[in-house]
């Protein structure tokens, strides 16, 4: 591709369906194509692998349940990344914030599960998870707002700091004496979020042991709230303005420090809520490293979903398919471990994020040819 093309086409605007559907789709397909090559290199049939994966993720009620369970995680972290992104902040710390959120959820569950039913515990746990998640973001936010420290670096640093902290708390404080694994006791029913059997039953499917639970609905509610926040509130307007230009925001009297901190608190809070799903929904206890990369998947989800809640839900489901399908695939094709998901995830981030404009000039030229004709 000649360099000149790149420049002269950059200012041409394209219709939404190309920008928000076609280009992401092409990028996604490319990511899958390269992943297919990897599968082929290790001596397996990519087509078979894809079939196994899709069947595993979408074939049965249980598979769909798992897919949506994973998607729930990614919706939360995707929203977390997206909210920050709208204000021009790149939050790589959703991973740590979610981890800390787990502590909030667990503390609530541990202290209430003896006394009250789940629906009393839940709202308190939602708040606690969000609060703890926000707490994980507050120092990077403050450093960015007041000291102008690069938030990308500080949030990465905080992933490690929080990980050490949680490690300490689990190993020395919350562990059940005599147990091997550093994890809390199992929550009683009052500290568990009920599964969504009824939802699956509505579609004639059986959830089985899949851990899809009420937090999926909380995630969807958060999507709506984020949409309202970003496009229908004055705060959202200020965030978006700041996200595009700090100097314009200063001119418009939008307080930088306040917006950065509020945005990061919201972002951290959303990440923290992610913990509800695995901690109170699935395993009913707080475990070491339970986030296991969902925070980072949030980056890919947010990029794929173009920072819009609808896009994020779709991208989260896509990654849910990858996670669940990948687990099934690695069971049936033992040479392909679940790490394959990480490869695909990386490629999606690469093509949909860093190389998002690679095909744009070509598409612009084709588009111009078609519209002229």
């Amino acid at each position, binding site marked *: 591709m000649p360099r000149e093309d*790149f*420049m*002269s086409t*950059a*200012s041409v605007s394209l219709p939404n369906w190309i920008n928000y559907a076609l280009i992401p789709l092409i990028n996604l397909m490319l990511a899958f194509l390269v992943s297919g090559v*990897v599968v082929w*290199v*290790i*001596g397996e049939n990519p087509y078979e692998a894809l079939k196994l994966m899709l069947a595993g993720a979408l074939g049965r009620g249980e598979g769909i349940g798992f897919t949506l369970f994973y998607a729930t995680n990614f919706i939360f972290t995707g929203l977390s990344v997206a909210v920050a992104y709208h204000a021009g902040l*790149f939050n*790589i710390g959703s991973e740590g914030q979610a981890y800390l959120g787990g502590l909030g959820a667990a503390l609530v569950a541990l202290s209430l599960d003896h006394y009250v039913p789940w629906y009393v515990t839940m709202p308190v746990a939602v708040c606690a998870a969000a609060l703890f998640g926000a707490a994980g973001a507050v*120092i*990077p936010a403050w*450093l960015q707002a007041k*000291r*102008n*420290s*690069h938030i*990308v*670096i*500080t949030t*990465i*640093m*905080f992933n*490690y*700091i929080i990980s*050490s*902290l949680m*490690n*300490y708390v689990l190993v*020395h404080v919350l562990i059940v004496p005599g147990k091997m694994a550093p994890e809390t006791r199992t929550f009683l029913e009052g500290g568990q979020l009920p599964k969504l059997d009824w939802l699956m039953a509505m579609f004639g499917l059986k959830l089985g042991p899949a851990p899809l639970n009420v937090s999926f609905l909380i995630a969807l509610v958060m999507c709506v709230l984020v949409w309202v926040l970003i496009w229908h509130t004055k705060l959202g307007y200020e965030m978006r303005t700041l996200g595009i230009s700090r100097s314009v925001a200063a001119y418009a009297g939008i307080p930088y420090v306040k917006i950065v901190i509020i945005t990061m608190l919201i972002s951290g809070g959303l990440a923290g809520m992610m913990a509800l799903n695995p901690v109170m929904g699935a395993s009913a206890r707080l475990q070491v490293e339970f986030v296991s990369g969902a925070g*980072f998947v949030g*980056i890919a989800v947010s*990029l794929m979903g173009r920072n819009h809640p609808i896009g994020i839900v779709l991208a989260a489901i896509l990654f849910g398919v990858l996670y669940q399908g990948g687990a099934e695939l690695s069971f049936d094709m033992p*040479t*392909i*471990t679940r*790490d*394959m*998901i*990480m*490869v*695909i*995830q*990386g*490629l999606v*981030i*690469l093509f949909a*994020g*860093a*190389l*998002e*404009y*690679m095909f744009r000039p070509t598409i612009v030229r084709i588009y111009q040819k078609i519209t002229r004709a």
Partner: protein
Amino acid sequence: MDYFDILVSILGSTVRLSIPLIFTALAGLFSERAGIFDIGLEGKMLAAAFASATAAYLTGSPWIGLASGIGVSLAFSLVHGFASITNRGNQIVSGVAINFVAAGLTAVLGHAWFHQGGRTPGLPADARFSPITLPGAEMLRDVPVIGPLYANVISGNNLLTYLAFLAVPISWWVLYRTRFGLRLRAVGENPGAVDTAGISVIWLRYRAVMVAGFLCGFSGTYLAIGQSAAFINNMSAGKGYIALAALIFAKWRPVPVLLACLLFGFLDALANFMQGKSIPGIGEVPVQIFQALPYILTCILLAGLIGSANPPKAGGVPYVKER
């Protein structure tokens, strides 16, 4: 065991643990000084570790291992270059992507090829860079103070260790005493100035990114076939980020980079040593504190509490002449 022996032991450990940081932070130095942020150091190091261990295992030669490590790391840095220089993508996103691909790919390939849970098979001694005993180390060992220091800290390391320490003055010299270095520093500050001086910004930045890949090749190789005798899943374990922290700590200058890496290596060594021991008056210090310390220090630095860290001005911004 007296305090001096403890110190010698910790210093020896410090040196060994700092080496990957030094190579990696220098890699970051070249890339970021040229205006290309490199979060992907971690991934490149990991990929290089896998490649070097695999090649050394297959050929039995540490040199072929090193060459493969460098080659694979270079390939990853070219991807980063293609995304962030040619396509002007977001450099952070590209780096994050590279970390994922490297972590996933090494595990998938390692598992598929060797069936050892993602590990590569252990390497025999002559497929690795083994410790070199410097002349006189044994003789001097009993000389007070300098003897143990020479024998246990300075001597007895592998070739890559000495290369890492050599790489620091070389980097300094390249950066401040050569044409390439002058241009590289310029392009990270004001690519327009470089462009109008008749120098290709793109090619210059590609070269910087390739130097970064080259150096990450060394750090990965050190991890897999210097320090240990195999590749292990995710063996870089965040060292790329620590190196990045060290780079910031050093304010993007070569000699301070060395000091920062040694500091972080020392913290790591101290954490190993202190584990399970108690300090008089304080009691047992949780290892987690030591583990978190480099990150906490970096945040404190970034908060401007110990001087300000100004990254290269054009860092992270793709060079665009025409809108």
